[in-house]
């Protein structure tokens, strides 16, 4: 029996949704019949619009898909203008103000408090700048991710940016690929660091050499969502650059035909690969979807991957790095990926002044300003904006990622972004960074949907509830030791329902245990020249990996500290967690296009 979503998609989906969207925008929010809300909200996702959660009716999150995270000159300025004019809601965020932009873990942009009535003007402004919300959400090709400095990276073997661009142009808006069984996430990487995070995508192209030619190996069926994380499986296929689009089309068609449209839980590619195995996936791809002989996998570069591999890494792109053309790219840390709109406008202006105007977004929620000449690099680094968005951040600031959380999201059960900001600041002020640690990743996701990618962090935090002093409070499940690299590893879940205000104390105690118990080892000779030391400590990830479950649970205890958490109450049941009057009854929503409350009986 088809699901409700499949029925709704059969009726109206893809490009045609736009006409309906504009009609509703013209007629106003309350023109959408109540009984059709679920159907239309599901369809609007295809055009990048997610209806915000209970208590925020009539307001939408708007997602702009920027392929490979690339914002061409002038585009960031447009994003700032749109956020400034349209992404202002009825209440301010105490950390970020009245309007801001979120950089996501899939190199996209999210704005909040968007009203339906403004959508036509927003689309016109974005599209005039070459930006689009098309297929940013929904059951189709999502934003294509990859190495954010593709084409500007000395670690690069293949320039994957033209490949990502071609995939974007081919599969966005093509009706044949507009309605898939479920979302379809694709990664393309050409560098030797693994920063495309191909392992957690439905379809991944990773650099590989075959018979002396550089191209891509293909992996299928990765993903983190729900309680079933999978790394993408090697299907033993290598493609030259010119065949990438054909193979991508073939894999998409296979998923379209064989993905489970009767059960959305099972609809992701990872479950089809589970069911069939990589060998059958390859043979079906060969026999039914391509008309040439697929070549077997080439020699990959995975043993060189440093991105989120547990040790020192360049792959998060924070810092100052020289491009092959002699200019520099400067990766700036954006705590939890959120920037106030004035800062976004300033960043756009600085990118224009010092670089080419291009700005790129990373999968660690950070930004990269490219093409800065050596002559003006120091002046750029001295700009006041970089005090808050540092190219050399403290490890706890650098490693912090958070999803949207109960501020706006219908799925989350805990507050996330502001809490993670407070965690990072407290850790920075109160916990010594263990000697030798430059990156320490703490990812906070509000539920099992895993938008903050918690399973691939040193410390994985996932929203839960517990009882403390007799009262229900927000809590987090805790996992340890996840990451990517040559041998990716999902976190081991160690603690359940830790009260949110005891998590910083837990992390402090955990790091103290790591410092006390970690092992030293000889540094391989070829690496000794770099830092001169003959011994080094095992990484936190290695420290976790060699311990069993009982040992991990005995490492540290949660503890109350000087950390204060203003979001311990059930923020899911507020209309907005930071409002002075936060009860659902105090919500002004739904409102008309000008922000005036509408009677719910209208």
């Amino acid at each position, binding site marked *: *029996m088809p699901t409700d979503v499949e029925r709704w998609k059969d009726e109206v989906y893809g490009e045609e949704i736009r006409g309906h969207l504009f009609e509703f925008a013209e007629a106003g929010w309350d023109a959408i019949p109540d009984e059709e809300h679920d159907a239309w909200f599901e369809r609007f996702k295809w055009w990048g619009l997610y209806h915000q959660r209970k208590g925020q009716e009539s307001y939408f999150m708007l997602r702009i898909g920027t392929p490979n995270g690339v914002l061409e000159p002038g585009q960031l300025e447009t994003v700032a203008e749109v956020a400034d004019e349209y992404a202002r809601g009825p209440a301010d965020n105490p950390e970020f103000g009245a309007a801001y932009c979120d950089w996501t873990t899939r190199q996209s942009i999210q704005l909040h408090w968007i009203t339906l009535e403004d959508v036509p003007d927003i689309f016109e402004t974005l599209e005039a700048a070459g930006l689009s919300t098309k297929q940013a959400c929904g059951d189709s090709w999502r934003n294509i991710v990859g190495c954010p400095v593709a084409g500007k990276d000395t670690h690069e073997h293949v320039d994957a940016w033209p490949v990502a661009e071609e995939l974007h142009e081919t599969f966005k808006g093509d009706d044949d690929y507009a309605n898939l069984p479920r979302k379809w996430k694709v990664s393309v990487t050409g560098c030797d660091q693994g920063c495309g995070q191909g392992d957690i995508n439905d379809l991944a192209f990773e650099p590989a050499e075959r018979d002396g030619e550089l191209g891509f190996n293909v992996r299928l069926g990765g993903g983190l969502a729900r309680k079933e994380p999978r790394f993408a499986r090697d299907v033993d296929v290598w493609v030259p650059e010119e065949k990438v689009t054909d193979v991508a089309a073939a894999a998409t068609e296979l998923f379209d035909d064989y993905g489970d449209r009767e059960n959305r839980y099972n609809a992701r590619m990872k479950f089809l690969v589970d069911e069939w195995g990589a060998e059958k996936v390859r043979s079906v791809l060969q026999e039914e979807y391509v008309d040439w002989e697929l070549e077997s996998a080439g020699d990959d570069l995975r043993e060189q991957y440093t991105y989120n591999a547990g040790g020192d890494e360049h792959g998060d792109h924070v810092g100052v790095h020289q491009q092959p053309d002699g200019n520099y790219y400067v990766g700036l840390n954006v705590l939890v990926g959120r920037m106030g709109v004035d800062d976004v406008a300033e960043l756009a202006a600085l990118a224009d002044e010092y670089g080419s105007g291009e700005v790129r977004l990373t999968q660690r929620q950070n930004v990269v300003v490219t093409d800065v000449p050596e002559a003006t690099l120091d002046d750029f680094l001295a700009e006041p904006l970089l005090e808050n968005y540092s190219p050399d951040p403290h490890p706890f600031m650098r490693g912090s990622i958070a999803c949207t959380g109960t501020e706006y999201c219908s799925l989350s059960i805990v507050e996330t972004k502001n809490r993670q900001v407070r965690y990072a600041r407290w850790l920075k002020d109160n916990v010594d960074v263990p000697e030798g640690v430059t990156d320490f990743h703490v990812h906070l996701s509000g539920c099992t949907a895993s938008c903050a990618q918690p399973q691939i962090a040193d410390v994985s935090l996932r929203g839960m509830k517990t009882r403390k002093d007799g009262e229900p409070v927000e809590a987090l499940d805790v996992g340890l030791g996840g990451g990517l690299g040559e041998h990716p590893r999902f976190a081991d879940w160690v603690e*359940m329902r830790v009260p949110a205000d005891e998590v910083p104390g837990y992390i402090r105690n955990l790091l103290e245990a790591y410092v006390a118990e970690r092992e030293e080892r000889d540094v391989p000779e070829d690496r000794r020249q770099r830092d001169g030391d003959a011994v080094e400590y095992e990484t936190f990830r290695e420290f976790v990996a060699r311990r069993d479950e009982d040992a991990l649970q005995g490492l540290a205890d949660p503890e109350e500290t000087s950390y204060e958490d203003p979001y311990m109450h059930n923020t899911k049941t507020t209309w907005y967690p930071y409002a002075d009057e936060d009860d659902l009854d105090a919500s002004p929503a739904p409102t008309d296009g000008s922000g005036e409350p509408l009677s719910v009986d209208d």
Partner: protein
Amino acid sequence: MADRVLDVNAYTTFTLLDGELAGHGWRTDAPAVLNVTTGGDDEVVLELELDNTATDDVPSHADRVALSPGEARDLAAELESYAGRAED
């Protein structure tokens, strides 16, 4: 093992209930997740998971039962009835 089996999000019916694991000769209190959802073939699914960190007596797991719409209504009526008694 501290890894949950069930998804937990804002649509989960109850994310924090007081539960109890019981076997022959043993009982252990544990927080619980209880959820109602739809299954395939016109089913209602009731699923329950008790936090596994509370015990070593059973492996990490969740329990599910499928109910027909009629059975789900019978259950709802029973719950309603017993809720009334509990309040009396």
